[in-house]
């Protein structure tokens, strides 16, 4: 199965811009399904970006982050070709990890 994580990391001089999109329902626990039953909350709690052995960005999320969440940030100290490791964990114990090359 394809990864749930799409990431684009582009170095421009010393600054690397990172955009990530993750496939996840981010169910709030407040919405009912077609049968009128509440869909239990199911959401990513933590999303982490690591580069060269160091956390460069850590997101703590609640249910108010949109379905298929998106995030963009920038950090210093990486160069083209470096690995950026992205991983998430959700409230039901689900998780996924991917590694992207900075371009």
């Amino acid at each position: 199965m394809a990864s749930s994580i799409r990431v684009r990391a582009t170095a421009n001089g010393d600054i690397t811009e990172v955009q990530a999109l993750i496939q996840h329902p981010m169910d709030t626990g407040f919405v009912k399904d077609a049968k009128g039953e509440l869909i239990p909350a199911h959401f990513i709690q933590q999303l982490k970006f690591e580069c060269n052995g160091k956390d460069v960005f850590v997101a703590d999320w609640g249910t108010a982050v949109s379905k298929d969440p998106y995030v963009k940030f920038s950090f210093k100290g990486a160069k083209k070709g470096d690995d950026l490791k992205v991983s998430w964990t959700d409230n039901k114990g689900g998780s996924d990890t991917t590694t992207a090359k900075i371009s």
Partner: protein
Amino acid sequence: MKARASILLGSLSAALVAFALTSPRVVAADKVDPVADARAFQNFFFQKFPTVKHEDFVNGPYSMNEDMKRQWQEKEEFPPYEFALDAGKEMFATPFKNGKTYADCFPNGGIGIRQNYPYFDDKEGKVVTLELALNRCREANGEAPYSYVKDEMASLTAYMAFTSRGKPMDIKIPDDPRALAAFENGKRYFYTRRGQMNFSCASCHVQSPGERIRAEILAPALGILNAMPIYRSEWSGMGTTSRRFVTCNSQTRAVPLEPQADEYRDVEYFLSYVANGLPISGPGARP
């Protein structure tokens, strides 16, 4: 994503010129004149919205409102249809159980052909949409057809549209009374009021594009199908042209027709033909 945008822009001027130069077809049938209809349709929108670039009409409500356009451009940096697009690409390349693929069913292996759909099939005597052609391809190869409104069908058409981005819509109406009748029937469907709200498609998308219905900015009818399929935030997911027709009907409190009903096929034929020359922009993202 930026490359996609420039492709769109680049091919556009050529497309519009090509459209302007299309030789007038000889129409004998009583006053069904698609060429004149398309010209009038486009001119109506170009004059109503003189500041909107012609190629921008295919971006629906985003061509009409700056604040919305900014939100959309932000989303397009990593568009919500990305996953459907990837899934569609994979599905398209995956062989059926008999070893054949979608590519075997379509001209040019199915790549870069979205702008030619729907077309008039002279054997069947009816309009054939891309969604219909995809399911026929599946059935011809012993596979079960997909739902017309979302999921796999949306993913497949998203991929096929993506390979055709920037190509000018190029719908042909052969000199065949049945094709002209289909066009005319689609036109009638488009302008006919229905549902308890007594709205036609045109009530919203011709008379009031750019205006708000509650929170939403109405899309112009011109080029509205060029962006299909779309990821609608309201749906939290993808939907096909069929899904758009069905939901438009229900919103006016009309009982929708079954997807790929003759009327829907015809209205798709009409709307696509009058958008000839405008670039394919699908898959799209909408509120």
